């Protein structure tokens, strides 16, 4: 009787164990599934932005129309208008088109097409008076058609391109005059109102400057504060209050730091608005507790025997801490710092408040120039109406995730490297 009861109990225990395992596997599976859906969604939407569609257009570099000759200086060429030869080449696609449709023909290329021809000509001066096939950026509407992002079968009055444009486009496709290329300009261009020209360069550089300022401020301050609090400060009421407040600071919503930046850095110190300098300072405030806390934890985890060993050799307190304790706490501190910085990299809200949400169409050259940052760029583009910005938004998220993965891998690498060395 007793044995049977024991058997039943044992079975129950095993079943409970199996159930628990199952729940665990299920939740991991769910988490991975969601992650996969998210990544798949972003990549399928965003990968298109890394390709651009171009049109191969036969252009006649007519000397008279350009008003140039073989001896023209570079300045003269830059000042010359290439609009007319571009228009001629576009009109040649449908010579019999009525005048009303001519404007639609001009619209099938990007507004930067004239500049592209000029650039091409500057690199190939000998083609004056000759006809040459030049690759020009297609307008973003047809670009979206080419990538299959825009349904062609909806009524003409509800799309951004006409049947006539579509007819010309189809002809060009059948003649292999429409080509897809790697979109380097997405990485080298600054923001633009035209989706086909918009790039992440200004926000990429802005993010870099911002993080750099943030690291420069928060790393030394955070480490010194952590070392002092953990190793030197007397344990009393004051340090207890400081400790509690540092922990609270880590939980303050980031937008509050933005308000602080707006109120203090911009309105009191009159630092330049919309700049990586102020952005980095605001993010440094936010990152400080996120460095202090892991650094203190890492210092606390260093065995006291190491401190005693050094003290017993007659090392002073500072020598003991700097030579023996801090190196051991470095891996934890560094990975904490990098994770704090990667949070700062993805931060949007506080930067909106200090004006980093402005439309910036030049790449900043110093941290004192107005600039955007990657997450704000995502925010800006996600609000734009043009279809071309949908894929740009996702592509910017891909770039952001790419940098986050790099930073976090670096944190893991550092931790493993140091841990292997001393354990």
């Amino acid at each position, binding site marked *: 009787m007793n044995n049977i009861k024991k058997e039943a109990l044992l079975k129950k225990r095993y079943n409970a164990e199996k159930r628990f395992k199952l729940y665990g596997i299920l939740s991991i599976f769910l988490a991975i599934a969601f992650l996969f859906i998210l990544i798949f969604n972003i990549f399928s939407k965003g990968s298109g932005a890394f390709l651009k569609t171009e049109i191969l257009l036969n252009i006649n570099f007519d000397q008279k129309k350009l008003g140039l000759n073989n001896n023209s200086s570079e300045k003269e060429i830059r000042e010359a208008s290439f609009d007319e030869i571009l228009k001629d080449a576009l009109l040649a696609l449908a010579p019999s088109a009525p005048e009303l449709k001519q404007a639609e023909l001009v619209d099938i290329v990007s507004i930067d097409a004239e500049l592209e021809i000029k650039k091409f000509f500057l690199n190939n001066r000998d083609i004056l008076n000759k006809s040459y096939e030049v690759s020009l950026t297609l307008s973003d509407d047809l670009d979206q058609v080419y990538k299959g992002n825009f349904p062609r079968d909806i009524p003409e009055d509800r799309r951004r391109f006409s049947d006539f444009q579509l007819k010309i486009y189809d002809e060009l496709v059948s003649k292999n005059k429409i080509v897809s290329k790697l979109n380097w300009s997405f990485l080298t261009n600054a923001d633009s109102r035209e989706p086909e020209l918009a790039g992440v360069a200004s926000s990429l550089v802005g993010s870099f400057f911002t993080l750099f300022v943030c690291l420069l401020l928060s790393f030394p301050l955070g480490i010194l504060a952590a070392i002092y609090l953990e190793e030197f400060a007397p344990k009393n009421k004051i340090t207890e209050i400081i400790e509690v407040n540092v922990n609270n600071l880590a939980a303050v919503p980031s937008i509050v730091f933005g308000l602080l930046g707006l109120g203090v850095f911009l309105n009191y110190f009159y630092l330049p608005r919309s700049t990586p300098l102020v952005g980095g300072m605001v993010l440094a405030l936010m990152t400080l507790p996120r460095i202090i806390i892991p650094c203190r934890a890492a210092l606390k985890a260093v065995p006291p025997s190491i401190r005693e060993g050094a003290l*017993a050799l007659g090392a002073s307190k500072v020598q003991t801490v700097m030579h023996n304790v801090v190196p051991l706490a470095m891996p934890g501190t560094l990975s904490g710092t990098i994770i704090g910085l990667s949070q700062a990299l993805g931060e949007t809200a506080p930067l909106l408040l200090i004006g980093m949400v402005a439309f910036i169409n030049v790449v900043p050259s110093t941290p004192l120039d107005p600039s955007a940052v990657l997450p704000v760029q995502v925010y800006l583009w996600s609000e734009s109406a043009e279809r071309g910005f949908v894929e740009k938004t996702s592509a910017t998220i891909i770039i952001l995730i790419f940098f986050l993965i790099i930073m976090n891998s670096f944190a893991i690498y550092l931790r493993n490297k140091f841990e292997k060395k001393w354990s």
Partner: protein
Amino acid sequence: MNNDKIKISTRNLNVYYGAKQALFNINLDLMEKKVTALIGPSGCGKSTFIRCLNRMNDVIDICKVDGSIKVDGSEINEKNVDVNKIRERIGMVFQKPNPFPKSIYDNIAYGPRIHGLAESQNVLDEIVENSLKKSALWEEVKDRLNQPGTSLSGGQQQRLCIARAISINPEVILMDEPCSALDPIATAKIEELIDELKKSYTIVIVTHSMSQAARVSQNTGFFHLGKLMEFNLTEKIFKNPDNKMTQDYITGRFG
């Protein structure tokens, strides 16, 4: 024991951890170039006592040390005495081997470096080699001085810590249960080493092993509940102790 020179003497030494008194009126003389063993049950204050001798108790905020501790006749238990200078003269080896997170070489070189004992790299190399030789570790590690100290076995690590302690040429070495984390073979090596080291250094060793105290020491003190119950020649303590409690402890009746 009367014709030996006294190296350290404590008079009316009282130690408090907050409100709790850990040591009561300890009067003890440690002889130069002799091994003094301190025995007693756990929590009796032996470790607290030797941590007073190099002022390691300063590290503990709530610890208060009262009384006189004289090294070569001069008082060290005073605020204005530089603890770093004392610790340079009185080294310490701990219960658990605690090599620094540095190479074997740098573990030994650390002390001489911070005290500026070596003017040149050659002198430093010599100090490292001599210290490792004195601690009988040289032959085992001479080919891998650049490997981390933590890569050694427990017994080797403890000898490394002894080498580290003698690298700055102290006068006294305090050992706080140096063999409690080691296997019998490693223990035997450390005991041999202590025998060798007493030619040059005054050694105080706290131990839980009665046989170890009997083997390595010349003088033994028996602590119980924070009081020094008996202090005498080791032979006398183990063969014919004056105190009944000492007798009971060494014969294993309590502790």
